């Protein structure tokens, strides 16, 4: 058995069975991570290059740890301080790294579709660690995995995605992933940050964050991505926090406990107040913990295909 894909470019290409295979494999890796020796020798014969053209803390450390826990060798590359600044193209850069006998590439890039483009030109398996405003598949997998851990089967569960939907690759991957698992998805945020025709994806939308909170069982709160907004889409951060930010009082006003998630990094006091982010309902650090197990599963499952084909 293995995944139906050679690369993990987006959740869009995955079958429901693929997602479930990744989850059941990640369950096992999560158990490995709780042992005194948190390491297995499976991928001693595999080398992974982590190629990051954009900044990252969690994703990068998480991938690197996942590789180490699988006994794979890893090399790290970041665009800053590399020959990219001398004008080397993406394919040249990656082919040069691959010619040093690298079996797999984990890539983050600010251009949507960059890993898809690369997958047509190289043989190694590629894991997309975020491409522009398109997808961030491992984040969606670890989000759904964390929800599943708390709620069980996600079929019929109500999940709200709140914040900057327009610029968020996490939102798009989450929508695909949750829908494939049978959950109902609602997106919420200011009108300027909700893409037009989002209902074509089969999700509902609202501009009222309180309504979304009252409806959902899980609120996945997203960061306002100022770095991707080249024109003003709301008047000020203070106004955003007032009308669309989530705080503990709002959570307390709902009669039941909903789960609060955030892919990080949090703009504390903007989309999420500190008392809400650090409340008992928040599973933000569980998400980070699960990230390593999910990435171990993705790397492990894709490593087979990469070497055989």
């Amino acid at each position, binding site marked *: *058995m*293995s995944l139906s894909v050679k690369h993990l470019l987006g959740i869009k290409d995955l079958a429901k069975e693929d997602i479930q*295979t990744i989850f*059941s*494999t990640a*369950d*096992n890796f999560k*158990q*490995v991570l709780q*042992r*005194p*020796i948190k*390491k*297995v*020798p*499976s*991928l001693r*014969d*595999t080398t992974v290059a982590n190629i990051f053209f954009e900044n990252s803390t969690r994703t990068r450390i998480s991938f690197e740890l996942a590789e180490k826990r*699988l006994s794979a060798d890893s090399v790290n590359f970041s665009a800053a301080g590399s020959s990219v600044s001398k004008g080397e193209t993406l394919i040249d850069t990656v082919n040069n790294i691959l010619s040093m006998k690298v079996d797999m590439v984990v890539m983050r890039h600010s251009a949507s579709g960059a890993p898809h483009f690369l997958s047509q030109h190289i043989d190694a398996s590629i894991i997309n660690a975020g491409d522009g405003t398109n997808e961030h598949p491992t984040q969606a997998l670890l989000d759904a995995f964390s929800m599943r851990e708390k709620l069980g089967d996600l079929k019929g569960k109500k999940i709200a995605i709140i914040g900057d939907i327009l610029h968020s690759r996490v939102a798009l991957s989450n929508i695909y992933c949750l829908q494939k698992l049978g959950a109902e998805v609602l997106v919420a945020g200011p009108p300027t940050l909700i893409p037009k025709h989002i209902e074509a994806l089969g999700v509902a939308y609202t501009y009222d964050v309180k309504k979304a909170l009252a409806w959902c069982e899980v609120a996945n709160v997203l960061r306002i991505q100022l770095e991707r907004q080249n024109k003003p889409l709301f008047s000020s951060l203070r106004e955003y926090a007032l009308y669309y930010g989530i705080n503990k009082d709002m959570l307390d006003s709902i009669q039941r406990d909903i789960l609060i998630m955030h892919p990080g990094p949090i703009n504390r006091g903007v989309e999420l107040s500190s008392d809400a982010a650090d409340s008992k309902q928040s599973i933000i650090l569980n998400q980070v913990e699960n990230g390593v197990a999910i990435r171990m599963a993705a790397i*492990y*499952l894709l*490593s*087979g*295909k990469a*070497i*055989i084909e």
Partner: protein
Amino acid sequence: MKTLFTHEQLTITIQRLAHQLVEQIEAFEDVVIIGIQPRGIHLSDRVVKAIQAIVPCQKIQYGQLDTTFYRDDVHQNNSIHIPSATSIDYNLEGKQIILIDDVLHTGRTIRAAMDALIDFGRPKHVSLMVLIDRRFSRELPIQPDFVGQSVDTMYSQKVKVQWDEHNQDHKVLLLD
């Protein structure tokens, strides 16, 4: 397809294996019985149950071990192996381990199991119990300590233990 052992034969064999263990082990305090996932646990479940029936006052420590991540053929078959659950809630430091699997063939699974075990601590002693020992097919220097039945087979043949969940119709098949 040929039936090597019938349900009645297997039931007696499992009882014998349980008795052999009880005969050799005075106190089960420092013993951990570990079934190897996925197929070995069918046998280990039944052996543990049989031991419990023989020595009801002793507490048996029992766990399951998956060897997938320790295999030496991760990248040799056309697809990658999907793991089963490992559940070992005991510190294995200084313990006497009884590994249990259904069929011993090349010995590679047991090699992987021993590597996996060591990651849970340094056991004092590890021994191996198998239901079927396929003699003369070993690729590694590994021999069982407790054997249900020995069979002589060709490398191309397959030996499959079919477990019946209602405990009515277990059998061992030889497939060509």
